[in-house]
């Protein structure tokens, strides 16, 4: 099968690079390839510095932030590691050693928190409701005098549920505790303005919005106690050492610029149609929130069907999707997100995620629904489940 024939519906995992993004990156490979120098350096280096600053201003402004408050990293994983471990380094011996997070966080947050737990930090994992939204009472109760950070995502990577970050921010402000949110999957499609939201740290990434892989960023509110944990030079406000990847930064900025309200609205229409059509398949359950949901995310569970088999059959028909099935994962652990929203293992194994992007067309929705309906029917025919 040729690449152009594949209907790609895994845009939460990675996206096709937009040609316009590639164009914006090119000058920094061949012409302005110098390291970003200080204003007292040679002109090639100053040009590089200007390009980096320009990219920084663009992305920061999409968050309502000052450019000094935004640093580039190698991606969302590094950003969340820096946010959580950086605050722990700064406050662990001062304010306390307690961290609060949620049961549905993506691995960079969840595993950073667990890594700190192994080093003697205390961890509270707040549970979520059936749609994947954090229990606000439990969150309020979990914050203690020695709590140094609350890390709760803006949007879920699997089921697309948007958290009520406004209320979470208020609670944190009221309790005087730092708030980090992982916005890898929502930025910039779901607005987040740091002038309105009392948030201290925000993780963002380029790979989800048709930008290059390997570049992301962290918003750090001015005055936030945080220390770098990787040592080297003084780059990125002395928080992230290493030679700056200017082509990647420029590409990230261009990718942010290319995400429009109209495009997001178009994806939302396709999402709603996809949900509606998939739920016409018998014994199909929508995972995640019906309303507070990423504009490009659909996640459903088909009962009596195992996700890896479904995924392989769809692949053979030219559709790329993702599943929460244990068989698909590297560890054979079922999706912790589906289990956290009260789903049983069967629901996790039969869960399939479809995520839309810029290069999806209207026709893709009906085409994938048709293929899914056929494959699900075939697999149910050979399944011993659901026949009683």
């Amino acid at each position: 099968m040729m690449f152009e024939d594949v209907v790609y519906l895994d845009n939460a995992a990675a996206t096709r690079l937009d040609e316009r993004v590639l164009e914006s990156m090119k000058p920094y490979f061949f012409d302005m390839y110098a390291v970003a120098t200080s204003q007292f350096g040679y002109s090639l280096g100053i040009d590089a510095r200007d390009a980096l600053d320009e990219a920084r201003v663009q992305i920061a402004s999409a968050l309502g932030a000052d450019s000094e408050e935004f640093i580039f990293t190698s991606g969302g994983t590094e950003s969340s590691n820096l946010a959580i471990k950086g605050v722990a380094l700064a406050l662990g011996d001062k304010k306390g050693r307690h961290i609060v997070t949620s049961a549905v966080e993506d691995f960079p947050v969840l595993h950073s928190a667990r890594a700190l737990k192994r080093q003697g930090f205390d961890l509270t994992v707040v549970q979520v409701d059936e749609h994947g939204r954090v229990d606000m009472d439990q969150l309020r109760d979990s914050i203690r005098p020695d709590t140094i950070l609350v890390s709760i995502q803006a949007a879920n990577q699997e089921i697309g549920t948007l958290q009520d970050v406004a209320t979470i921010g208020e609670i944190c402000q009221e309790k005087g505790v730092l708030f980090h949110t992982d916005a890898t999957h929502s930025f910039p499609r779901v607005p987040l303005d740091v002038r309105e939201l009392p948030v201290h740290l925000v993780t963002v990434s380029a790979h989800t919005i048709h930008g290059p892989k390997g570049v992301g960023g962290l918003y750090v509110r001015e005055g936030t106690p945080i220390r770098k944990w990787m040592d080297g030079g003084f780059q990125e406000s002395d928080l992230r050492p290493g030679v700056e990847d200017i082509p990647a930064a420029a590409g990230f900025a261009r990718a942010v610029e290319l995400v429009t309200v109209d495009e997001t609205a178009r994806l939302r229409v396709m999402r709603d149609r996809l949900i509606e059509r998939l739920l016409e398949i018998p014994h199909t359950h929508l995972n995640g929130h019906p309303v507070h949901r990423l504009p490009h995310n659909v996640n459903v569970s088909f009962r009596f069907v195992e996700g890896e088999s479904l995924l392989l059959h769809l692949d053979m028909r030219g559709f790329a999707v993702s599943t929460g099935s244990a068989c698909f994962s590297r560890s054979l652990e079922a999706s912790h997100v589906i289990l956290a929203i009260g789903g049983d293992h069967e629901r996790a194994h039969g869960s399939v995620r479809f995520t839309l992007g810029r290069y999806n067309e209207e026709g893709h929705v009906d085409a994938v629904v048709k293929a899914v309906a056929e494959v699900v029917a075939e697999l149910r025919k050979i399944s011993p489940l659901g026949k009683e």
Partner: protein
Amino acid sequence: MPLPYNEIVMEHFRHPHNVGGIEDADAKSVEGSPACGDRGAVYLKVDPEALRIEDVKFESYGCASNIATGSIITDLAKGKTLEEAKSITWKQAAEALGGLPPVKTHCSVLAVDGLRAAIENYEERHGLVKEREPTTVEVVRKRLKRVMNPVTGLDVVRTNLVEDVEVSDGTVRIVVDLPVDHQFANNIREEIIEKIEPRWDVERVEIEFVE
């Protein structure tokens, strides 16, 4: 294409042989559990004179590895006597498939176990079980090798989750090295009970989780 499965496996996955149920089956087995991702059923039609498998079919709620092994193992078993079919090993099935990814071993072993369990089911139903073996610590450990540790995809004995086994007066006591509130604790408990309780001389199965 960089799929983890070879072409023989994919062909059996795409077009599995001997799929479905047998309505008036002479024997049946159900193995596995959805917690681990797979559950399979095997149905047998047996010639009572020759003790030869006339027909065998399977159903699968499982991944490609499980479906492909179900397909090949039923191919291999068809027409064989119960004794011959019983001795078909997982290794033979995997070889006939041209190899399987190591992480998928358990899904495949499950399909082989399903065939054996269906044959045992036939023998029990038709009074062919010769001498009943008493349940000992060794027997329990052997049966526990069929209970999977979903975290690794390997069985609970091999991954050292089984800390202790005691057998006395029909009571089997098993200590599992896992916190009681672990994601898989209940599934592992259920699976252990499923494997040990049906034994003829077992009255109680006690499972204790320790961290």
